């Protein structure tokens, strides 16, 4: 009996000693991430969660955006030249870049042109042996019209690659910063193909990036170790762990308990108490996004710009932003965020003015207003934390000028589908930038080419001419002027009521240094230190 008692006491003692809050080992950084990656191949992914775990930690691209910047800088391509006609890009590749050594693969050669060719051809060439592997949905590549834009990718020598386009495109270098253009190892791919397991290329990654994947337990944790041979120099932490924690409140509790060092996507309502906690640091940066209310310009009465202007005056923007974003948003004037080059500061927003709005409506032939639908998204998005509350505030504002608004919403997929078909009168939506070029906003959301599916269904020739030209001209100063003019026209024509640019908030423990918020919402732990 006595022996059992001692055993029981020993177990209890061990249990209690383990109960002490888990202290992070000196050089292990734990990031409380919000979900499981879909794959470890960024070519196949669309979610930021997957990009954080794959392209940012494991891979590199020819050109990259890093830290808090939005401009492209050299990555695996040390430099590049563009032909005079803007059609041919020649990339000079970095030498001596080592591929990761993992449990499944030991590289025999450093990174070279074959890897670039493999990575592009997998997405471009439908007959490529890897094209259909793992579903073969290259969504970003298709979104930027890759199949029609890129004519060929050729190897000039081991360290020179030539990419030819079908038409001049000034956004091409920015496009290449997209995670989908991560470079994968051709040697590893060949080995897997011979072994009959090509799909492992997408689940057991081998990259050139700052961290090497050690193991991944679905819905639980991803572990990385630093890449000692990383070409930018080894990371300052030894081990990186993504502790997958779906619930934002739980992530916060884990931060408080010291179980995580960094977390993203906090609940807006909890940010104030986070600021009060001296163990935590709240980092904020204006997000690279826009939330908007688009008018269906194909439908009456929204085809009349006076009506659109009147609504712009009837909505109390300051009030809406304050009530909905709870301090995490700044009122938007232009359709692009202020951190993006070519943002036109001189554009003046419409002022809240009910009387003037009524006058404009009367001039447009609606002295007593009209009836219309206003659609709100059923989900929380980075650019709009609460579309329902926003829609209700808008409904109340518009009632004051006689516009009777009926609120409409559908399940997210159906919502998007119906919006694309133009069933709405007015619709709430938004956009988070994928790469640091204004065309990512203008082209996708407001061009005539996108008018068949964009929320405003707006095609305005003088505006469109400017943005089409801006995509073809390679001189950035010239492009800036064109986009600045486009923003003036946009405001005058008012296809949208621009709502807000939300502020991205991320939390770190106070002993974390060197962490920077990315405008694109990615989470990069290279260069982060634990004090």
């Amino acid at each position, binding site marked *: 009996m006595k022996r059992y008692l001692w055993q029981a006491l020993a177990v209890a003692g*061990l*249990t209690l000693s*383990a*109960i*002490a*809050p*888990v202290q992070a*080992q000196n050089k*292990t950084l734990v990031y409380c991430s919000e*979900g*499981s990656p879909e*794959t470890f191949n960024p070519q196949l992914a*669309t979610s930021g969660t997957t990009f954080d775990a794959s392209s940012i930690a494991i891979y590199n691209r020819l050109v990259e955006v890093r830290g808090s910047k939005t401009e492209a800088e050299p990555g695996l391509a040390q430099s590049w030249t563009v032909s005079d006609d803007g059609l041919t890009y020649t990339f000079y590749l970095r030498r001596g870049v080592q591929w990761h050594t993992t449990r499944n693969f030991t590289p025999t050669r450093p990174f070279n042109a074959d890897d670039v060719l493999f990575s592009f051809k997998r997405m471009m060439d439908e007959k490529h042996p890897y094209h259909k592997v793992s*579903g*073969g*949905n290259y*969504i*970003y590549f*298709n*979104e930027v*019209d890759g199949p029609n834009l890129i004519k060929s990718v050729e190897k000039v020598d081991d360290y020179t690659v030539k990419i030819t386009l079908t038409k001049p495109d000034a956004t091409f270098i920015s496009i290449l910063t997209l995670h989908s253009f991560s470079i994968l190892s051709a040697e590893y791919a060949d080995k897997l193909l011979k072994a009959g397991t090509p*799909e492992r290329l*997408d*689940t057991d990654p081998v990259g050139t990036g700052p961290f090497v994947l050690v*193991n991944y*337990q*679905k*819905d*639980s*944790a991803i*572990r990385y170790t630093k890449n000692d041979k990383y070409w930018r120099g080894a990371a300052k932490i030894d081990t990186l*762990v993504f*502790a*997958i*924690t*779906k*619930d934002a*409140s*739980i992530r916060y*509790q*884990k931060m*408080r*308990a010291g*179980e995580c060092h960094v977390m993203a996507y906090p609940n807006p309502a909890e940010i104030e108490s986070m600021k009060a906690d001296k163990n935590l640091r709240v980092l904020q940066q204006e997000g690279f996004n826009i939330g908007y209310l688009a008018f269906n310009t194909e439908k009456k009465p929204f085809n009349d710009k006076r009506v659109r202007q009147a609504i712009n005056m009837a909505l109390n923007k300051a009030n809406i932003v304050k009530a909905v974003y709870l301090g995490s948003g700044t009122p938007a004037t232009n359709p692009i965020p202020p951190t993006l080059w070519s943002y036109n500061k001189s554009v003046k927003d419409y002022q809240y003015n009910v009387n003037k709005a009524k006058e404009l409506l009367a001039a447009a032939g609606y002295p007593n207003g009209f009836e219309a639908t206003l659609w709100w998204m059923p989900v929380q*998005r980075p650019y709009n934390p609460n579309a329902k509350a926003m829609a209700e505030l808008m409904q109340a504002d518009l009632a004051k000028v006689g516009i009777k608004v009926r609120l409409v919403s*559908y*399940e*997210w*997929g*159906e919502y*998007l*589908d119906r919006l*694309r078909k133009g069933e709405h009168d007015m619709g709430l*939506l*938004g*956009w*988070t930038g994928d790469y640091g070029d204004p065309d990512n906003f203008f082209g*996708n959301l407001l061009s005539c080419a*996108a008018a068949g*599916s964009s929320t405003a269904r707006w095609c305005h020739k003088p505006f469109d001419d400017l943005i089409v030209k801006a995509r073809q001209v390679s001189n950035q100063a010239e492009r800036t002027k064109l986009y600045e003019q486009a923003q003036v026209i946009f405001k005058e024509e008012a296809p949208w009521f621009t709502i807000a640019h939300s502020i991205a908030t991320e939390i770190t423990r106070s002993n974390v240094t060197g962490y920077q918020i990315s405008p694109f919402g990615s989470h990069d732990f290279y260069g982060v230190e634990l004090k």
Partner: protein
Amino acid sequence: MLRFFLNRFLLLIPTFIGVTLLTFSMVRLIKGDPITAMLGERAVDPRWVEEAKARLGLDQPLIVQYGIYINQVVQGDLGNSIVTSKPVLSEFWDLFPATIELALSAMLFGIVFGIPLGIIAALRRGKVSDYLTMGTALTGQSLPIFWWGLLLILLFSITLGWTPVSGRLSFEFYVEPITGFLLLDCILSNDWPAFYSAIHHLILPTLALGTIPLAIIARMTRSSMIEVMGEDYIRTAKAKGLNPKRIVLIHGLRNALIPVITVIGLQTGSLLAGAVLTETIFSWPGIGKWLIDSLDRRDYPVLQGAVLLVASFIMIVNFIIDILYGLINPRIRHGR
């Protein structure tokens, strides 16, 4: 007995077909599709969207899709996840042990504490301790798991600092999955510090999920005990001057336990359902989170497969219980 067994076994077949039909049609009834969910706000060439849907077979008439699905299921193939491209079955077996571990632990907690509490309440019927235990049990049964879970975290993890907030194992440990049951794997790999860490992580989710079975078992034990303790043979035992402990534990409890065991069996389904919520709160890597994620992403093969597998699991558990009853009670066996 063989006839009874075969009877019950054959009954499984229409049930199974019903479940496949139900999961297939319910999943398709939810608006949206996997490709649209993947695209979000981004617009790509509509032709590409159609092609992508066609590659997944989503352009076929529903009846054809169902036929293909059933044909696969019969061959033991539940398809691949649209999102991760991995076989549904292998993802399921990666995650299901975590759910079972949590559910078993919660059930154990419910039994170990529920039965004694029920006995105490029954023996002290009408007294303060009875009202106290039954009041607590009723509260426990009515607490929403997500709220109760968060409360537990705030008290035990944040204020007292006794337990970790969430997860299944502290990040400094890594145990190579052998069976998938972490506690067992820790023992098999002789990693005791990891074992204690795993136990540690199991405490709060067990409390959160185990409260409901605890409450139900305690209430069932109480009412059943009260009934049994009023039986003639108990009075006879008392009159014979038997030891009161013996009367309660041997003569009373043994008979009172029959309905309690039935209730425990019935709890399997609700425990798995509760595990879905508990797993989300405690970042527990079981099938709950997997199901919710696949619902968000409209990952049809995963949704269908997961629901079908869980339903089959519950069917098998019930089948075993049926057979056990048959063995114990001849009246059931002979259909009387």
